[in-house]
């Protein structure tokens, strides 16, 4: 047997006694043995299997506890999502409902108790569906006609005063410095900072630039604008033009005109030329249309 084979066998721990003698006779036997015995100093640290098994077992049971914890965490997550979902649902359903009309747009709104509202152009109406059974409060900015079914107090709140009714039909108009209430049926009470006024059917309540203006009785069943007409009785021309702009979504340029001049009459919402004639002819004015702007000039 040659030297290399002997060393290989030695390395494999498989020398038999005869081969061992041969191996011992090798010149580098001492070197190899010295190397081998020194290598034992590099032995891996003692590994206590049973101790290690114990610690693995304990970490396994810890992780199992942790996974149980994770399970409750998961449950909490689901609960949190549900809570958030419900609160969003609750929040959105109790949120105020707002209806807005643009210029040249009218809207009929059915309120939760069967009351209804016609909303005129460029008006905003805000109410709360959720609390409707307790308080029938609406916030109005613009003009609207109400048909109120019998029930608890029905309040229309505007900046210029609150209109309270018990079941009736009435029109509220609140535009800048103009506040007008017309009662068509039943009775209406109007409260502002100063006093409370009660309107009977046909009564008209008008505040213009902070002044109360007494008006004659109204004989109509519903406001004119419901039938697509705007009616004015001795109103400053400015308010007529404002209403015209709202109904036709046009700009009116009337710089050299006396806007305080009183106008009595009406204009239709369906024919712009006819409407312009109805508001200019009685006051001896001319008009021209250019794009989205109407120019009104005096003779």
């Amino acid at each position, binding site marked *: 047997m040659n030297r290399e084979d002997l060393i290989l066998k030695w*390395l494999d721990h498989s020398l038999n006694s005869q081969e061992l003698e041969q191996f011992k006779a090798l010149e580098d036997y001492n070197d190899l043995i010295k190397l081998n015995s020194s290598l034992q100093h590099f032995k891996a640290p003692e590994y206590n299997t049973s101790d290690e098994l114990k610690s693995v077992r304990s970490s396994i049971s810890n992780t199992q506890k942790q996974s149980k914890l994770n399970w409750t965490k998961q449950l909490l997550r689901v609960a949190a999502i549900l809570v958030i979902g419900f609160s969003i649902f609750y929040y959105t359903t109790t949120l105020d409902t707002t209806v807005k009309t643009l210029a040249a747009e009218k809207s009929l709104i059915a309120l939760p108790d069967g009351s209804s509202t016609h909303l005129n152009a460029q008006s905003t109406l805000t109410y709360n569906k959720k609390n409707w059974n307790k308080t029938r409060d609406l916030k109005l900015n613009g003009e609207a006609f109400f048909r109120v079914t019998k029930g608890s107090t029905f309040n229309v709140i505007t900046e210029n005063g609150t209109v309270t009714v018990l079941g009736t039909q009435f029109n509220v108009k609140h535009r800048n410095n103009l506040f007008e209430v017309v009662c068509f049926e039943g009775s209406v009470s109007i409260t502002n900072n100063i006093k409370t006024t009660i309107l009977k059917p046909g009564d008209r309540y008008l505040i213009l630039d902070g002044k109360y203006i007494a008006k004659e009785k109204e004989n109509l069943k519903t406001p004119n604008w419901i039938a697509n007409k705007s009616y004015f009785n001795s109103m400053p021309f400015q308010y007529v033009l404002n209403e015209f702009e709202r109904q036709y979504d046009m700009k009116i340029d009337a710089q050299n005109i006396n806007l305080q001049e009183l106008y009595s009459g009406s204009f239709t919402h369906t024919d712009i030329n006819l409407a312009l004639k109805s508001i200019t002819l009685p006051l001896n004015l001319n008009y021209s249309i250019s794009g989205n702007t109407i120019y009104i000039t005096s003779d």
Partner: protein
Amino acid sequence: MKKDIAENICNETLFSSIFEKHSKNLHNFLYYKFGEEFNPKDKVQEAFIKLWENCAKITPSKAKSYLFTVANNLSINATAHKKVVLKYQLHKRKSYTNENPEFLIEEKEYLEKLQKAIATLSEAQRVAFLLNRIEGKKHKEIAEQLNISTKAVEKRIYGALKKLRTEIKEL
């Protein structure tokens, strides 16, 4: 039915027996491969915990290779970003009271040389050689453990021996 239970590593008795069978080998393998710095004991623990977590998916016959792969990967992850020159601590296991001081100094010098020489071995050589020399494992056992052929083990070990001897002579 009995066979079913025996085949499931989720069974604690079987798990313990697998631990007793493989944990020490795994530990020594990791130690010789990555050195002490990388906590081979912790890696063994982690590997067995992973085995337990996946006990339903792994058959006992696959357990050994699973453990070695997991522990190896864990250690590689830990060492991925730094290539470390492994250092081997000398274990003073016996007090050589009978030896004279000259011999002790000589021995210490020799061990230092050996340490440096071992550090020059390739990782594959080092693992195979030290398992063979220190743990007294036969070529076949090492081959099984490392999933390579006996011939390759023989080559690695013989190569390592040769390299060590020349290194020591040079130092």
